[in-house]
C-alpha cells in the first residue's frame, strides 16, 4: 500500500511538472471565463427583454433556459475531462517503457501491480481536482449569477467524473501494450464511437426503430462513456424537460442505473487487464 502511494505521488508530480496539467488548467480557465461572460450576457439580456407581464411564466422560462445553458456547459466540460483522462493515461506505461525510465522502478522491490495501481491513483486524484475545477466552476458560475442549482447536482457531477476516469483507465490499459500515439488513436476512436452510438440510440427511440436502438445499446456496452454523460444530464435536467422528454442536452432514451453499474464493472475489469498485461510484459 505504501509503495502504491509513492508511485501515485510520483505520477501526480510528473504530470504537474510536465505542463499537461498546466495546459489543461489554462484551457479550462479560458473556457470557464468565456462561459461565465456568455451566461452573464444571455441572462441580463433575457431578463431585460422578457420584462414581466407574467412573473410566474418568466421565472419558469428563465429557469428552463438556465438549465439548458448549464447542461451545455457541462457537456463541454465532460468532453474536456474525457480528453484530459485520455491524455494522462496514453503515454504513461508505453512512454516509460520506451524511454527506459521504468527499468529502475521495476527493479526495485515493488510489485508491477503496485506500479499500475499507483499510477491510476495518481490520475484519479488529478482528474478529481480537474473535475472539481471544471464541473464545479461551471455550476458555481451559474449559481453565483442566477442562484440556480440543477437537481441531483452531486450525482450528475460524479457521473461526469466517472466518465473521465473510465476513459483514463481505458487509456492506461491500452498504453500497457501499445505506443502512446496508438493509444490516443484507439481511445479517441472509441470515445467517438460512444458519442455516435448515443445519438443513434436516441434517434432510434425517436423514430421508434428497435434495431437502431439496439445498435446504440451495443455501442454503449462496448464503451459506456457516453451513457454516463446521458445519465448525468438526465439526473440534472429540469423537471419541465423531463416532462417534455426532449431537450438538446438530455436524453429521450435514458441509460438505466444498471448501465452505471455496468460502467463501474467495466472500469474495474479494464484496470485489472492493464495490471495483468503489464505484469506479463517484457520490459
Amino acid at each position, binding site marked *: 500500500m505504501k*509503495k502504491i502511494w*509513492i508511485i501515485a505521488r*510520483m505520477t501526480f*508530480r*510528473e504530470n504537474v*511538472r*510536465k505542463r499537461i496539467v498546466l495546459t489543461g488548467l489554462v484551457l479550462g480557465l479560458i473556457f470557464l471565463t468565456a462561459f461565465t461572460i456568455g451566461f452573464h450576457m444571455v441572462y441580463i439580456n433575457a431578463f431585460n427583454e422578457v420584462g414581466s407581464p407574467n412573473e410566474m411564466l418568466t421565472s419558469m422560462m428563465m429557469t428552463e433556459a438556465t438549465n439548458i445553458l448549464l447542461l451545455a456547459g457541462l457537456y463541454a466540460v465532460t468532453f474536456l475531462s474525457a480528453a484530459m483522462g485520455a491524455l494522462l493515461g496514453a503515454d504513461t506505461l508505453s512512454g516509460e517503457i520506451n*524511454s*527506459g*525510465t521504468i*527499468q*529502475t*522502478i*521495476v*527493479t*526495485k*522491490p*515493488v*510489485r508491477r501491480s503496485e506500479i499500475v495501481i499507483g499510477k491510476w491513483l495518481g490520475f484519479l486524484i488529478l482528474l478529481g481536482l480537474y473535475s472539481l475545477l471544471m464541473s464545479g466552476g461551471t455550476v458555481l458560475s451559474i449559481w453565483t449569477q442566477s442562484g440556480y442549482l440543477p437537481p441531483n447536482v452531486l450525482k450528475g457531477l460524479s457521473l461526469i467524473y466517472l466518465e473521465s476516469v473510465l476513459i483514463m483507465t481505458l487509456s492506461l490499459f491500452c498504453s500497457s501494450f501499445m505506443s502512446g500515439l496508438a493509444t490516443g488513436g484507439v481511445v479517441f476512436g472509441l470515445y467517438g464511437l460512444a458519442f455516435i452510438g448515443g445519438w443513434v440510440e436516441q434517434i432510434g427511440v425517436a423514430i421508434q426503430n428497435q434495431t437502431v436502438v439496439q445498435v446504440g445499446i451495443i455501442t454503449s456496452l462496448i464503451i459506456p462513456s457516453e451513457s454516463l454523460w446521458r445519465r448525468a444530464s438526465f439526473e440534472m435536467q429540469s423537471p419541465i424537460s423531463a416532462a417534455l422528454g426532449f431537450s438538446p442536452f438530455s436524453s429521450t432514451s435514458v441509460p438505466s442505473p444498471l448501465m452505471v453499474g455496468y460502467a463501474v464493472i467495466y472500469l474495474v475489469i479494464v484496470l485489472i487487464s492493464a495490471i495483468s498485461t503489464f505484469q*506479463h510484459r*517484457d*520490459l
Partner: protein
Amino acid sequence: MTPVIKTENLRKEFGKYAAVKGLTLQVEQGEVFGFLGPNGAGKTTSIKMLLGLVAPTSGTGSLLGAPLGDRTALARIGFLPEHFRFQEWLTAYEFLQLHGELLGMDSRNLNLRRNELLEQVGLSDFRHKQLRTFSKGMLQRVGLAQALMNRPALVFLDEPTSGLDPVGRRLVRDIIHELRVQGTSVFLNSHLLSEIEVTCNRVAFIRQGEVIRVMEMSALDQNLSMVTIRAEGLTPEVVTGLEQWGNDIRVDSEQLTMTIHNEIDLPEITRYLVERNVSVYALTPNRISLEEIFIETLGKDSGL
C-alpha cells in the same frame, strides 16, 4: 557460501529468434564479474532476465539465493541500466528520494545516504536541479548514486561508461574499486576491455547468449608474455643462453624479443644479462591483452 548469481541454461526467445541461447554461469560473493561479448551477444537481455525485467523462455536461476523474479532479492540489489534514462522532471534530490522510498528505506537513513552519495559522485551543487538539465555524464553519476542507495550486496552495471568522457569513466572505475574493497559483488557489462582489465576478478565471454569461456583475470598476468629487451653487447652465446627461460627469440641489432614461460623469471633474466656484461637499457614485458584474448575467443567477425 551461496553464489550471488547462479543460472542454468537461461534461454530467451523473441519470436523465433533466440536472443540468449542458454546462459549458464555462477558469480561468487565479492567478485567483480565482467560480462564480455560483441554487440548483440545477448548481454543486456541476460541482465534483464536476472533482474526480472524479462521473463526467461526456459531455464532457471537464482539471485542472492532467491529464485529469479523474487522481489525480496531486489531490495539488496543496485542497477544502473544502459543509456541512463531517468525521470527527468525530478531534481537529483527527489530522484534519489523516490528510489530510496521504493527500496523501503526509512527517511533518516535515506537522507544521510542521499547526501553522502551526492557528495561522492560530485553532484552536491546540482541537487536541486531537474534531471532534464543534466548532461550525460551527470545522469550517469546520479544513476550510480541511485544504484548504491541501499548499500546493495550486488550491483549490476550495464555499459556504465559508454559514451562518457575519461572523467566519467574514471569515476566508475573508482566506484567499482571501492565496492570491491567493501566486498560488494559487481556484475559489469561493458565493451571497454581496458576497463574490465583493471576492475574485474573474472570475466565471461559470451556469444549469442552462451558462455564461451570464463577466465580469471589473474591468469592474464601469469600468461605467456612477450619481452622486449633493448641492450648493447648481446653476443650469440648470451642469446643462446636465454633459451632456458623462453623461446621464439628474435634479435634485431640492439633489440631482442622473446616469449617467456613465466613473468616470475624476469629478474633472473636481468641478472643473467648484467652478469655477462650486457648493458641493458630497457626490459619490457608485453602482456597479452584482454583485447587479444577477446578476438581470439570470439573471432574478428563477431558482432556483425
